[in-house]
């Protein structure tokens, strides 16, 4: 059989980076071809070339045996190529129907006048086909929440009835149920003979839906094969290209260092008296009923986790703790002092930091430089005299670049031009400088590569060891289990349970998240 898409020796350079270096790739009809690699490996650039977003510098692309050179996404759409982009590409104040059919609205004849009724019913059909009956297609999408927005984005691509579709991290914001619905849809598309390119960092998904997998590294083609022929370690090995790494386990590291210190200095180590309660939350509720009666406590030197499905109120709780949204009732105590209702700015000075879930929108000033971002939360620490000093800023930034292994040309590079992993490390640097006693990590490793993940885990462990209190919010259960001393599980806005020690297992947390077996 002929491949529907064949790519030969594709090259693309951006200032300072070779994003694609002699990349080759092919895709057969009716196949799900997974594209794997670390962030910055060139997966997104490759898909942008296929879509006509980016023009390659060299190489050839063939669709059905005919060479193609798209000038814009308009051309690729005309050839039946669609994509679910990693970044949401919707207009926030248009509703789901308007977004799904944007620029392709059903019109009366050739008038350009939109048939609103038909558009709305068509949108409903597509969304219920994806199992999302509950999405109101007539409210502005910004009111829908990120998971539902993602479903709308997927519906938009599917509504184009594509024969080649690229999914770029489609499930990173989706719940289990939506993910299942998406996978079912992908199976349908396969049966109809569509070709699917699937980009994801979630290795568990590879076996579920993938036929073949191609690994990329530094813009280069590394290998291709059937998904079943690779083990997880092999894939990580190919992606990272260094010796095989295991995803970080803080408990193992701790155990190792404990036995070491036991041998060397038996009586030393932190005295129990030093471990004190730093943060106490009592019956906290928000004003919209998305956080209900949450109580928790956080001690110095520990990492506590918050597990929960998307929409269970995890992020809303973090926003309350950091003073972004105002609490409806309940109390937050920091070192015994009531801090309920303080503004985020005040809370930073008092000692709470938040690495938000969306680093691009909330964590960084993307157009500002790396150095600007580093000092943005800790201005009061870096410049106690209120006057900025470029040299101090540069020095601090360089220190953090080295400590956190941030890859950037210099301290003046714009955050915008950094890869996801480096951006996240930059957010971390910003909070290290602010030096707060409590740090809340909301999905710190979403969409970043294995290597950066491990580095961030190691830094979290180090922070805890130095006496900071850490709250880790995550969708990845293995991450929570690997990192946390205790885990609170949230369900429908309330804390449905707390687990620690030997109780920490995927099954147990899963049961509490879904509310079964209790």
């Amino acid at each position, binding site marked *: 059989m002929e491949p529907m898409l064949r790519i030969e020796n594709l090259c693309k350079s951006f200032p300072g980076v070779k994003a694609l270096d002699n990349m080759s790739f092919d895709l057969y009809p009716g196949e799900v071809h997974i594209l794997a690699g670390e962030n910055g490996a060139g997966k997104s650039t490759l898909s942008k070339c296929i879509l006509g977003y980016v023009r390659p510098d060299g190489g050839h692309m063939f669709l059905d045996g005919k060479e193609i050179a798209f000038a*814009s996404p308009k051309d690729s759409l005309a050839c039946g190529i669609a994509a679910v982009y990693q970044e949401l*590409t919707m207009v926030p*104040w248009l509703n789901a129907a308007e977004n799904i059919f944007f620029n*392709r609205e059903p019109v009366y004849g050739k008038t*350009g006048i939109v048939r609103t009724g038909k558009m709305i019913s068509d949108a409903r059909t597509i969304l219920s086909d994806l199992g999302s009956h509950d999405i109101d297609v007539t409210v502005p999408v910004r009111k829908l929440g990120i998971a539902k927005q993602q479903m709308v984005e997927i519906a938009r691509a599917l509504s184009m009835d594509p024969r080649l579709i690229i999914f770029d991290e489609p499930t990173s914001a989706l719940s289990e149920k939506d993910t299942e619905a998406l996978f079912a849809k992908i199976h349908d598309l396969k049966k109809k003979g569509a070709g699917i390119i699937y980009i994801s960092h979630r290795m568990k998904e590879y076996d579920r839906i993938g036929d073949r997998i191609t690994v990329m590294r530094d813009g280069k083609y590394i290998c291709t094969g059937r998904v079943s022929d690779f083990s997880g370690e092999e894939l990580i090995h190919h992606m990272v290209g260094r010796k095989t790494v295991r995803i970080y386990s803080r408990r193992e590291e701790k155990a190792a260092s404990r036995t070491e210190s036991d041998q060397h200095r038996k009586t030393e180590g932190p005295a129990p008296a030093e471990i004190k309660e730093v943060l106490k939350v009592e019956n906290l509720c928000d004003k919209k009923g998305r956080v209900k009666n949450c109580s928790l406590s956080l001690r110095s030197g520990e990492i506590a986790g918050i597990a929960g499905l998307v929409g269970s109120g995890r992020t809303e709780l973090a926003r309350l703790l950091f003073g972004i949204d105002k609490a409806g009732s309940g109390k937050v105590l920091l070192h015994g002092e009531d801090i309920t209702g303080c503004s985020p700015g005040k809370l930073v000075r008092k000692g709470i930091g938040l690495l938000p879930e969306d680093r691009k929108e909330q964590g960084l000033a993307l157009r500002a430089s790396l150095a600007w971002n580093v000092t943005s939360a800790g201005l009061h620490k870096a410049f106690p005299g209120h006057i900025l000093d470029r040299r101090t800023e540069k020095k601090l930034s360089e220190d953090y670049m080295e400590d956190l292994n941030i890859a950037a040309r210099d301290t003046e590079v714009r955050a915008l031009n950094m890869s996801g992993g480096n951006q996240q490390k930059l957010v971390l640097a910003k909070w290290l400088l602010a030096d707060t006693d409590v740090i809340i990590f909301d999905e710190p490793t979403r969409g970043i590569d294995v290597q950066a993940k491990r580095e961030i885990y190691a830094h979290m462990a180090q922070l805890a060891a130095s006496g900071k209190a850490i709250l880790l919010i995550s969708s990845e259960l293995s991450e929570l289990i690997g990192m946390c001393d205790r885990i609170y599980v949230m369900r429908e806005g309330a804390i449905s349970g707390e687990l620690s020690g030997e109780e920490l297992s995927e099954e147990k947390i899963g049961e509490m998240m879904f509310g079964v077996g209790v």
Partner: protein
Amino acid sequence: MKRPDTADMKRLARRLPPSVYITIILICFFGLLTDNYFTLDNMGVILRQAAPLLAVSCGQTVVVLTQGTDLSLGSIVSLMSVFWILLLNLGVPLPAAVACCLLLSALCGLINGWVASKLKIPVFITTLGTQNIYKSAALLLCGSMTIYHSHPVFRTVAREGFLHLSWSVWIALAAYSLTVFLMKKSRFGKMVRALGGNEEAIATSGGSVIKSRILVFVYAGLMAGIGGLLVCCRIESGNPNAGNGMEFSAVAAALLGGSSLREGGGDPAGTLFGVLLIQVLKSGLMQVGVSSIYQNAIIGIVVLAAIIFDAIYRRTDSE
């Protein structure tokens, strides 16, 4: 049967921009202070004065929906009034002169759009530049003086009409209806809203950001051109200062009407009420006899208050 009716009324009441209520309050206020306020003639005069601003505001609203402000619209108004009279003085037949004017105003918009989108110059700066260029062009064409031409059509458009509304009001209302219809019901309208929100959406669905943006400015230019012709009919002359400050009144009208510079959402239909508010206030202050020294300040305060009120109202509404 009655219940859903009241619910519908309530929803409608909530959706109306505050400028509607403020306008009603102002009308009552001025009505109590002056004699002969509530007469059809007086209302007709207010609307007739509002007509050019309504046309310009329609264009400005479209630009505001893309999160920009076109500062050159007032100058286009001046330029058109001068250009039209000039053409008529040269003996060009009236319909041809009108067509030439509309073409020129579209061209002015095209230049704005091309510079802003193709050369990627911020809209504010682009139109600040062209504002001065078009203004100078107007001064140049008339030799810095008001030029006159008498033609019966001016009186017909500005004074005669239908149902106590002059033809100029009907023309402005037609421009307004077209704008509302395009914004709500056409692909062009969706495009405009995307320009204010997420340009990625246009690109990923195969549209052209540059083309859409140029079209927006051409549309705004055309509307300003219509506004210029209406002004010309009213003053029966070509005045290079006729459109001074109109671009700002138009921005205020759009904002008062509920189009928002921050959220790109908002309702183009509200612009009508924004225009009415400004005109009722202007003519009311005049009729009450407030010194012109205070007039601008009072208009500024009311406009600002209405916008603040609207922002608070919107915030509580979204919670």
